[in-house]
């Protein structure tokens, strides 16, 4: 039915920029992001009949993320291996004042760079939380991780970003 197209476009197309933003941060370039988003929408359309929920954005972003990961696996497999071990890195934050100062001085370019050099799982969770304002529940859906893991991974991601920012500011 042509009705399916209309319903799909009503549910999926309003989230085009969210989809693109996530794909752009995962692939780190415009051209691949464009391809990923288009492919994700075609996949989403194909599986639209199985969409039952009310959260179209989380559903779509999960497909965008899967599409990007499949592509990364085929084209940039080393990025997926650049993983982390939560236990190994667990440590307390220092909370020193110089870090707050550093944040105030970090410009847009350095922040982008610090986030770009973060490993995938940290990068994506920060994008989902801070730029897309997804709830923990939505993040768990999109990233396919248990709800209980979301908070600890976010905490790690913020810490990693601070470290990364420190690195890029030293290299400046």
């Amino acid at each position: 039915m042509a009705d399916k197209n209309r319903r799909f476009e009503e549910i999926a197309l309003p989230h085009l920029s969210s989809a693109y933003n996530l794909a752009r941060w995962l692939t780190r370039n415009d051209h691949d992001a464009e391809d990923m988003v288009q492919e994700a929408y075609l996949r989403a359309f194909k599986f639209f009949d199985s969409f039952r929920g009310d959260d179209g954005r989380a559903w779509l972003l999960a497909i965008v993320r899967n599409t990007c990961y499949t592509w990364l696996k085929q084209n940039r497999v080393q990025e997926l291996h650049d993983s982390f071990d939560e236990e190994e890195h667990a440590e307390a934050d220092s909370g020193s004042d110089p870090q707050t100062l550093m944040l105030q001085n970090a410009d847009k370019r350095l922040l982008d760079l610090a986030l770009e050099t973060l490993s995938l799982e940290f990068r994506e969770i920060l994008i989902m939380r801070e730029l897309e304002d997804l709830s923990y529940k939505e993040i768990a859906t999109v990233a396919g991780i248990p709800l209980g893991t979301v908070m600890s991974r976010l905490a790690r991601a913020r810490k990693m970003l601070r470290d990364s920012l420190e690195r890029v500011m030293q290299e400046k």
Partner: protein
Amino acid sequence: MNCNETRNLMHGHLDKEIDLVRAVEIEKHLEGCAACNAVYSQETAMRSAIRERVSYYAAPQWLEARIRAALPKQGKKAIDYRQPSLNWLGFAASMAFAVVITWGVALHFNAASEDELLTEEIISGHVRSLMADHLADVASSDQHTVKPWFNGKLDFSPEVLDLTTQGFPLIGGRLDYINNRPVAALVYGHRKHFINLFIWPEESREKSLVRTKTKQGYNLIHWKDSGMAFWVVSDLQEKELMQFASLLQQPATAQ
């Protein structure tokens, strides 16, 4: 609530994801603990830095149109993804294409002979690829595998499109030698037929009209765009080959 518990739940508090009772307890602890308060301020600063200063990449305006055009249009019956289905947009495009071709053929009727040699070379390239069982040097239906394969082999980077959903699956790519230069040959399938698409750069960036030819039972379609020459050759019927050629031109028009 002690320092440890506060640090553990701090991010949930920051993200407003914990219940009210614990939120109040955390607030109470932060008031009385300078160390935890410092950590919390730092997290808050980090959070606003990301929200305010990290790039948000909005989708380019044309992407929505491209996606709408790429979505399968549903007719009265359910779409079978293995069968090529001609959506109305594709149909409209090929009609427009046919008009352009008719016009182009009429305009270039006399000038056509200069391409005669090239036409033969293209057909030879196509026949050779089928005869020697050497369709593709890189056999992949993934455009992101085929495109980078040409890196370092050619002095240009051909656009590789995956047209599987439109009924023309990508089979692979190879190098060929045509018009006294190495060229990119992309191979597509359609039912049991093969299509060779030859691409090479031209000196002039002038856009040419689309021309069709039939020779030795093969159909050819040729055009120039954005400094590239495109030759499509196959034993496929002219109408289907035109549909294929119009698909290659669609992304450019959508942009």
